[in-house]
């Protein structure tokens, strides 16, 4: 009976979805500059996944960090920062970075809370991945209108 009800609920839920949902704030992936790590990321703005942050509003970056070369390799620490290359300055705030290194399997999961882009323009996000012996950087750009 429970399985039947759950199936009905699932079908109803699917039926209530729009036929072509907008591709909102999917996870994106970037490889670290040395090619050894893959970093998947998405932004959380005002509690919801979003494509871009809002100027002068705090937001969060959610991260999944996984070795491309050795599945036993783990990110032990993350540093998250952002710069405006054209302005030669970075953020005015320090985000709070948390990391669950994934234990025995899967990607390490991280969050950088309290990110804040105080100006419009091109921001370069830098993720420094420390495996305990070396630090590698993954980076990507966000254009803030």
């Amino acid at each position, binding site marked *: 009976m429970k399985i039947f009800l759950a199936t009905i609920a699932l079908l109803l839920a699917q039926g209530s979805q729009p036929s072509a949902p907008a591709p909102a704030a999917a996870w994106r992936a970037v490889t670290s500059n040395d090619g050894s790590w893959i970093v998947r990321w998405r932004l959380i703005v005002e509690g919801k996944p979003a494509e871009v942050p809002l100027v*002068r*509003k*705090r937001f969060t970056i959610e991260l999944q960090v996984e070795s491309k070369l050795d599945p036993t390799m783990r990110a032990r620490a993350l540093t998250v920062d952002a710069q405006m290359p*054209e*302005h*030669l*300055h*970075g953020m*005015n*705030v*320090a*985000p*709070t970075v948390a990391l669950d290194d994934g234990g025995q399997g899967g990607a390490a999961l991280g969050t950088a809370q*309290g990110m*804040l882009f*105080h*100006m*419009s*323009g091109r921001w370069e996000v830098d993720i420094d991945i420390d495996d305990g012996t070396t630090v590698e950087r993954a980076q990507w750009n966000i254009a803030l*209108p």
Partner: protein
Amino acid sequence: MEHRTSIIVTLAFLCACEPSVQLTNSQVNLIKEMGFPGAPPLDPTNRYADDAGAAGLGHALFFDPNLSRNGEISCATCHLPERGFTDGLALNLGLSQGVRNTLSLLDCAHQQWFNWDGQFDSLWSQAHGPMLHPREMGSSYEHIIDRVRGEPILCNQYEKVFGLLPQPPLTESQSETIVANLGKAIAAYERKLVTGRSPFDRWVERWKQVGAPSDLAGVTLGGFSAAAQQGLATFTSRGECWKCHVGPLLSDGEFHALGAAPRNDLIADSARFGAIAKLQSNRYRSSGAHSDAAQGEQAKIVEALVARSDQWGAFRTPTLRNIGKTSPYFHQGQFATLPEVLHFYSTLEGAVTMDHHRESVLRKTDLSPDEIAGLLAFLKTLDGDDPPIQWTINPWN
């Protein structure tokens, strides 16, 4: 003969017309954001921000010289209503010579950070700074509270808004609270110093009404000349002014090192770099005990601020609204006139590297005389109507 006359008249008309201004899509988008800002945002850190009684008390405090150590200097000494709430001096002058230019208070309630270096994060917090600064009003908690208690007008107004003044001797906490309340009252008054629409605002509204076209040929309005249109186009393109002067306030509200050399005999100013530690230790900051939103968004931002070397020598981008009323310009009044400012931006003549910082967004633009003339014409359209006269007069007179 008639045909020839017609050709001559047509040619004369074409020669008399200014060339039509064509905007790119990005310029159109920038200009759409530059219109009249409307009412200031709420200030959750000050529950009295929009309290009429608090504004009345703040009005009286603002014009009261007896709050100063020598009884001669009020807020209005440096923020003169008839000069756009500035003093017209390169460097402020209170009890002694200051080291920075007096900023205008017009439309100040729209800001997130206050002073040139942003060492205050609310209008009410900023209000204490000049009262207590030894070079400005040089006052003390004790002196300020005694003045309020001893002047029936102030005392009555205070007690109507904040409740009875506690009897002396006061604890440190009581004194702090009274002075915090006085700052909140001054802020409530300063929130009234909003200007009305400028000629530029009226033109933007007209331009939007006709669909915000990229061709400005047909969008004319008295007070916003063809030269001003050309200036607006330069402002949002080759002049690169828009990189910092954006949005309704024509300011990004943030901090930049522009390389304007310090005035003679003044040492280099660390500006935003040094201000962050002052802000985070200020008892009247938005995350402090006297804030009415100590867990609010602004409080969280303040607590997360970090001083980074690239903030050295970086000053807040001032609004360009009312710029015709607020000379001289830059943080030490380095430039007396707007042509001097534009000459600096065009040539970077005399610019210096500010120690740790080099802001690459600023580069020589080599503007032509026509482009500078256009920019000047545009800047002259940014003065809004004065605030309501009731808030610009001295209530003690």
